[in-house]
């Protein structure tokens, strides 16, 4: 589905991706983890075509994505900070994105699911961070694309909403989607992920299931496993 | 003296039983020259309509009246002057004279009047002429209601509409002159009044004074001439209620004053001229209650001007109200209305509390570097002018209106 070869990216003198190789062929939820500055967001943005790599190639469903934008029809993306044009109302924003992407079959279902209908006529300026994130989630999932990329999906959400999100993710997984997630909430990652991709200095340092990770690090606890992964390199 | 002569004239007309000679193609007399030759003092020559191909018609010492009926056409066929007249108490009216030849050596005219007194030239139409009405060394006449029209292209082979030379006490009124070199030209002419004429589209000047003192021109309109009026080397000229407009083009003036003294300008309107008034070597001239509207320059003073007074004039939306070269020289600007004045009037006496400096630094710059005009009304120039106004360095410090009016002056 996604195949990345020898990906290099520098910002100024700072190397972010250094010959990264990654293949994602399986369905399910893949968590992209790594310390700050390890290149998670850059990797995601490269897949989305928002960052232009210096070297290497990315293929999505066998098609290279250089000078191509139509492949994004098959990706749903949830950006980290959702800041929408403030003067639009929620319903107008939904309409607008639909206008850009075409019909959204699951719009109403998701609106009900996240309880967005309570503030659907409000202007986006007047929404709280959590409300905005819910709108953001509706926007992301309503097009029902086979590949979903979520950058910090839990930001601003209350515990109840996080539970709902988990519920949704399990449903989506069951319907056969591939979902890439980044998150700092380890508990969340552990409970949803099928596979962990750990980035370190612009390369894939670990790629495997939660169990494999625990095994490798000899840790029973996921959070400790990750911590060991982080510190292990230094020792 | 003149009155006596007039009386004598009337008496002589009454006593000699004036004859009337008719001229037409089927009349006894078919040529104007023949009629003139027959006529005696006091006779009337009545020319019926038709075309008369005659030129150099000479009228010598005959006090007669020539009257055209329905504008008979006198076609000089480009062969010289149409009428040359030397006669006192002479009248000519209602003729249509055309096709006077141009020349570089002779001053051919439709009507040439020399050494004459007490004449009237009235309601004639002159078309395609070299000189229109040329008056030499004559006294006491009136030239009214004539229409003079030509299509002059170059100054060197075109003549003037009404041309006075060494003459005085002439009244020129209600004429319309267009397409000549100068509309009306006075050289060594005095005590004359020029009023209610319209001079337009003349190549050089609408009205031109040279060495002509003690004249007045009133209520005339000068439009789209090379320059409206030029007054040069003359004294005691009164200029009232004239309109100078659309002298628009490179080096065009509404009014050009050069080496003149003791003149007065009042109630004139200058509109849309490149330079409304250009003054060069003028002394003791009063500019009172004139309007300067939408000109490039309102007044351009070129130097050697002393004791000129500008008061109660309206300066409205000119690119430059005043351009000034040299020192202040006792010239005075006071109590004018300046549309660009932005001061305030706290005591409500109608006079701005802050004095106004009408000369801009930019006008000084343009004088030095004419190409700089392309920066007219740019922000940089605005800042420059502002700083100069706050602390003048290049423009004369004492050129200042201490009593700028808050409202347009009504006169």
């Amino acid at each position: 589905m996604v195949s990345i070869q020898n990906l290099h990216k520098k910002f100024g003198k700072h190397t972010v991706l250094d010959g990264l190789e990654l293949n994602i062929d399986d369905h399910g939820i893949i968590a992209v983890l790594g310390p700050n500055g390890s290149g998670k967001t850059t990797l995601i943005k490269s897949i989305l075509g928002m960052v232009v790599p210096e070297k290497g190639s990315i293929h999505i469903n066998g098609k290279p994505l250089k000078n191509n934008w139509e492949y994004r029809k098959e990706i749903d993306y949830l950006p980290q900070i959702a800041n929408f044009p403030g003067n639009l109302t929620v319903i107008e924003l939904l309409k607008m994105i639909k206008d850009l992407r075409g019909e959204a079959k699951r719009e109403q279902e998701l609106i009900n699911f996240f309880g967005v209908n309570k503030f659907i006529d409000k202007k986006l300026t007047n929404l709280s961070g959590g409300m905005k994130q819910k709108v953001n989630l509706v926007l992301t999932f309503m097009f029902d694309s086979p590949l979903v990329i979520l950058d910090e999906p839990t930001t601003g959400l209350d515990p109840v909403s996080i539970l709902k999100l988990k519920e949704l993710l399990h449903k989506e997984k069951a319907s056969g989607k591939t979902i890439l997630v980044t998150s700092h909430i380890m508990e969340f990652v552990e409970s949803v992920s099928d596979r962990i991709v750990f980035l370190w200095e612009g390369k894939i340092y670990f790629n495997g299931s939660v169990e494999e990770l625990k095994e490798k690090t000899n840790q029973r606890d996921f959070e400790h496993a990750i911590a060991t992964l982080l510190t292990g390199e230094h020792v | 003296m003149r009155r006596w002569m007039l009386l004598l004239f009337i008496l002589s007309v009454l006593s000699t039983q004036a004859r009337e000679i008719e001229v037409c193609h089927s009349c006894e007399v078919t040529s104007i020259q023949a009629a003139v030759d027959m006529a005696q003092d006091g006779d009337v020559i009545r020319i019926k309509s038709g075309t008369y191909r005659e030129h150099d018609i000479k009228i010598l010492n005959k006090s007669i009246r020539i009257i055209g009926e329905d504008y008979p056409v006198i076609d000089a066929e480009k062969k010289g002057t149409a009428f040359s007249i030397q006669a006192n108490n002479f009248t000519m009216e209602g003729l249509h004279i055309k096709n006077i030849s141009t020349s570089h050596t002779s001053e051919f005219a439709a009507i040439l009047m020399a050494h004459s007194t007490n004449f009237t030239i009235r309601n004639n139409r002159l078309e395609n002429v070299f000189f229109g009405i040329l008056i030499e060394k004559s006294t006491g006449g009136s030239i009214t209601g004539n229409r003079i029209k030509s299509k002059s292209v170059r100054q060197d082979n075109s003549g003037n509409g009404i041309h006075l030379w060494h003459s005085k006490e002439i009244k020129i009124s209600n004429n319309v002159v267009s397409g000549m070199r100068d509309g009306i030209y006075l050289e060594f002419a005095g005590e004359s009044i020029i009023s209610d004429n319209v001079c337009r589209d003349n190549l050089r000047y609408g009205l031109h004074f040279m060495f002509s003192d003690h004249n007045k021109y009133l209520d005339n309109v000068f439009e789209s001439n090379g320059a409206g009026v030029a007054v040069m080397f003359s004294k005691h000229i009164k200029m009232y209620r004239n309109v100078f407009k659309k002298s628009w083009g490179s080096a065009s003036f509404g009014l050009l004053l050069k080496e003149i003294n003791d003149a007065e300008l009042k109630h004139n309107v200058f509109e849309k001229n490149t330079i409304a008034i250009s003054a060069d070597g003028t002394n003791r001239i009063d500019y009172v209650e004139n309007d300067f509207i939408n000109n490039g320059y309102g007044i351009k003073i070129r130097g050697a001007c002393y004791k000129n007074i500008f008061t109660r004039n309206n300066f409205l939306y000119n690119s430059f109200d005043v351009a000034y070269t040299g020192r202040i020289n006792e010239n005075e600007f006071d109590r004018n209305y300046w549309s660009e004045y932005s001061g305030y009037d706290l005591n409500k006496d109608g006079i701005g509390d802050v004095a106004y400096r009408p000369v801009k630094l930019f006008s000084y710059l343009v004088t030095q570097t004419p190409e700089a005009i392309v920066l007219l009304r740019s922000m940089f120039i605005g800042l420059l002018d502002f700083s100069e106004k706050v602390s003048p360095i290049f423009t004369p410090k004492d050129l200042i209106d201490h009593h700028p009016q808050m409202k347009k002056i009504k006169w």
Partner: protein
Amino acid sequence: MFKILKYSFFDLTRSSWSYIYFLFYLLLGIVLLFLNNDLSNAVITLMNVIIILVPLIGTIFGVMYFYNSREFTELLLAQPVKRTSIFLGQYLGVAVSLSLSLVLGLGIPFIAYGLFQSPAIWDFTMLLITGVFLTLIFSALAFNIALSSENKIKGFGYAILMWLLLAVVYDGVFLLSLVYFQEYPLDKFSLIATMLNPIDLSRILILLKLDISALLGYTGAVFKQFFGTSFGSVISLSVLVLWTILPLLNIARIVKKKDF
């Protein structure tokens, strides 16, 4: 692109700034035409506003809008939309709404005043044409600056600097070189220097309808001949079009390579 334009435009038409800008012109137009009642004065004042304020507002609005909608832009970037469409759409949204504020704000008082019957209609048309062009040009330049500098404060700084350069400094240097080289024929130089700066070019195009034409004759036959002919008008308009298109092409160029 037109979808993005549509939404950017609607977004801006709801922002109070657009209305303030529109009301400003409306008020200015009404005051100048109805209270002052002098057409030539009105045209000159409006010209001053248009050559100073329009570029400034275009610049500031362009930069501001770009930075304020950065996250939204990121959302759009992840959508199946061409990159250039996103930015050109946003640019057009800003430029069109600013132009509309200008045209409607001044146009309504014009029409109410009955300018269609007035001979000044062409002066006002020229005012509006150059005003719209300056809006298009300076919003495009603003987008260029904003795209090239991530830092908001720096971006604003550069934008104001650019405006200052074109609106003031350029003319200062222009004047200095005219004074310095006054022994040489300067006709062609001043013609070219005028054409190269959109603010100067707009100013001259408006002034040619007003007072400069007579004053120009005083110096440059070349200048007068050039602007007097239809060839000159075509060239001037083409230069304005070029000034609009070149920054837009540059936007497209930057956007293709840029990381977000």
